[in-house]
């Protein structure tokens, strides 16, 4: 033993010998929580993850992460109604992250730079028939081909895109953008047969020797309303009008156009009529603006362009150049009731935009298939009552949007893949939600939302140029960096810094952190000061 001074018995040493971890009653654990944006995206995009790459200016990595789930970012960035932004936690701080505009920026970057996709799995030898080249069919084809299956699309129309081409007007979705994203999917080896209507699904399946089918025929039959009309009254339906915009002969609507209906389709037709030279485009809708199914920003844009809207009105009769309109009032339960007051509207044509039904004729004679409310019933695995036939998009019960359709395509592809391999596809259990209460918002820089440039009014009323402009690189980066990275570590080093016990181990860029439980006393500071809610305190056992 070393000689020690008086009354000293121990050698000097480090406090590392003292394992203070045994004081702990709660332990911090790192976890990934589900960002509310991801949770709300019908296409199941991992938004937080692609924004993470965009934040550092790595747009290609961001785009590659994005297209893992959705092959149409440039389209989505224009037409998606972005429920992700409605759910975004930043909305509770100042305003939501402009997810949709960054998505569009990434999609456009990819087109500009010619970024390509690559199939990821070895060929399986299985062959899948996809019926309909709308967003749902294209999405399914994309995911199936990446899973190693051969895919053939039968499309009745002369071009791919479905309602993205024959419904959504050019001023919202330029066709070069649609073409580029469709082509990128076809480049993966998806076979597209245009002008190929499927009349009997089982016949087509047998003829092509297909192993499975994904149906995505959409909803294309216009709903009619009974309106007594003179022989010379010009009555058209909205889908037909918008479809003919893609052909040679543009629709002849006249100078005074009345559109009947309150959905987005009614708005699109009225705005299209304006651009075709109508001096008046009037939407007649039986309820109030608040009750209108169309999105408010679209109503706003239409009003700005000079579209007029008659609320609380129904059309009773159509003559050669006039319409009889009855005023309505809302009853206590919010339903419109007739008032017996009538007025006359001048109109060269009446366009009905009352919704669409699904053409189910190709399914006649398919055993076990269930139809309710005019749509095909599917299970949680997107399979119809007939084994091997799956369906998605507008033809199944769900909200009718491009994004839902794309989401169905992805989901169906995963189940079709499992079905073809004779296995079960079990989606990973969802992480717990990273609600706003899980965040420590103090740490985020104050930064208001970036406003997208809007096309000037004259061009909007007379041309089909795109109305919404895109972000440029600086404001896309700014917008991406507004993301709070909800529930997912973004390496801010706060936990590593604030631990009074030096019990957080930093593993370096990209490798995150861990806790040294030998010394962690469980004070909870790391969890409280983690800006994004990526640490949870769990009770210690005993």
């Amino acid at each position: 033993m070393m000689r020690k001074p008086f009354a000293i018995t121990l050698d000097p040493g480090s406090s590392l010998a003292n394992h203070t971890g045994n004081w702990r009653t709660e332990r911090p654990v790192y976890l990934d929580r589900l960002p509310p944006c991801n949770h709300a995206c019908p296409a199941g995009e991992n938004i937080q993850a692609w924004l993470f790459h965009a934040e550092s200016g790595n747009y290609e990595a961001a785009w590659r992460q994005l297209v893992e789930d959705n092959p149409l970012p440039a389209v989505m960035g224009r037409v998606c109604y972005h429920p992700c932004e409605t759910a975004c936690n930043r909305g509770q701080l100042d305003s939501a992250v402009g997810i949709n505009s960054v998505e569009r920026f990434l999609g456009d970057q990819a087109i500009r730079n010619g970024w390509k996709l690559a199939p990821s799995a070895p060929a399986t030898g299985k062959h899948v028939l996809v019926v309909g080249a709308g967003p749902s069919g294209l999405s399914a084809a994309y995911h199936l081909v990446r899973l190693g299956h051969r895919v053939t699309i039968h499309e009745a129309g002369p071009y791919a895109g479905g309602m993205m081409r024959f419904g959504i007007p050019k001023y919202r979705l330029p066709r070069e953008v649609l073409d580029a994203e469709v082509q990128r999917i076809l480049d993966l080896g998806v076979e597209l047969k245009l002008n190929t209507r499927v009349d009997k699904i089982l016949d087509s399946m047998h003829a092509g020797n297909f192993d499975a089918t994904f149906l995505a025929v959409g909803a294309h039959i216009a709903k009619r309303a009974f309106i007594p009309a003179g022989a010379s009254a010009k009555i058209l339906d909205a889908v037909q009008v918008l479809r003919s915009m893609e052909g040679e002969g543009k629709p002849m609507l006249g100078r005074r156009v009345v559109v009947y209906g309150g959905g987005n389709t009614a708005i699109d037709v009225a705005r299209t009529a304006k651009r075709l030279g109508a001096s008046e485009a009037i939407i007649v809708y039986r309820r109030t603006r608040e009750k209108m199914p169309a999105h408010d920003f679209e109503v706003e844009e239409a009003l700005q362009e000079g579209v007029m809207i008659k609320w609380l009105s129904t059309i009773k009769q159509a003559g050669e150049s006039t319409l009889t309109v009855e005023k309505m009032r809302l009853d206590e339960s919010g339903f419109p009731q007739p008032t017996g007051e009538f007025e006359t509207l001048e109109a060269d044509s009446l366009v009905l935009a009352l919704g669409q039904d699904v053409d189910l004729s190709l399914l006649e004679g398919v055993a076990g298939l269930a139809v309710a409310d005019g749509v095909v019933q599917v299970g949680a695995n997107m399979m119809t009552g007939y084994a091997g036939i799956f369906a998605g998009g507008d033809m199944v019960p769900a909200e009718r949007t491009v994004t839902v359709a794309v989401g169905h395509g992805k989901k169906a592809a995963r189940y079709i893949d499992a079905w073809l391999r004779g296995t079960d596809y079990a989606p990973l259990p969802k992480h717990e939600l990273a609600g706003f209460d899980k965040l420590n918002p103090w740490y985020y820089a104050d930064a208001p939302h970036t406003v997208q440039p809007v096309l000037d009014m004259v061009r909007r009323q007379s041309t089909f140029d795109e109305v919404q402009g895109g972000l440029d690189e600086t404001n896309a980066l700014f917008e991406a960096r507004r993301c709070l990275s909800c529930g997912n570590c973004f390496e801010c080093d706060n936990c590593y810094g604030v631990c009074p016990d030096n019990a957080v181990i930093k593993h370096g860029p990209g490798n995150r952190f861990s806790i040294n439980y030998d010394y962690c006393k469980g004070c909870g500071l790391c969890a409280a000061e983690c800006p994004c809610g990526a640490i949870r305190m769990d009770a210690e056992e005993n």
Partner: protein
Amino acid sequence: MSYQPIKFYQTGTFTVGNRLLEPEDRSVQANMRRTNSLNSGHRACQGCGEALGARYAIDAAMSATDNQLIAVNATGCLEVFSTPYPETSWQIPWIHSLFGNTAAVATGIAAALKIKAIKGGNDRVRVIAQGGDGGTTDIGFGCLSGMFERNDDVLYICYDNEGYMNTGVQRSSATPPAARTATTMAVGEQPGNVFGQGKNLPLIAMAHGIPYVATATVADLHDLEAKVTRAMQIHGARYIHIFVPCPLGWGSASNDTIRLARLAKETGLFPVFEAEHGEVTAVSKIRRPLPVDDYLKLQRRFAHLFGARPRTDVIARIQAQADRNIRKYQLLQEAPQ
């Protein structure tokens, strides 16, 4: 302010690190090779603000002096929890003084280093003295004032947890009015510590006209590190007063330590500023103005103000103190940032 806050880049300089910032704009604490002057295994309470503040400050000083540093430590929690013989958590040259003579011991070491340098030895070694508010504002005050007055080449850091915590939470001259301590019970008409007494040591230090005085909190790391770094660039007597919440003595949750420090600054109760030669040169503006209640409510030492019959009169007096600080130091910014 000695550093320019970076507002953008997602979290800017609000967080400890930030992968989007240039490495030189990140904090010393974000660095995987920080000194960790105060290592794991120390016996400070869960969530101790003093342990955190000391590592923040000394790591920054080590980084600023290229590790040429000696620290002198007064008796108090920081010494007791870090160095129960024969163990120590310190990973730097460190010496324990008495409770009241830290400034004098540091002066002596600085003088010895000066002689060594004259005799051709290492002339780069710098000295820090550190202690609690009791050791600084009360028992060590005479030695400290002398050190200031002689302009000795020492940085003195006071870790202010507003009481004698190590001996069981007694009142010091830095304990705030109305706070309950073991010696200022929450009884009678004026429960807790009295109003109108106590010492404001940063102002007293400024009155000595020393080259550098600053206040900081454990809630703003970039600011704290910048102030320590600035202090180490200056020779002569320097003083930094760091606000360090104490969960045990304040009756606060261990995970509220940083939040409380943030609230002390945001309410205006603890003005964060720096001064050179007796004049204030910069203040940290309040980012989100808040009433003092938000700060007081989180601490059981103020619980008697919020019982069945809330003492709105006492709270109003505390609010008036905050408002006076806000006026005096111009803590509000013109337009919200």
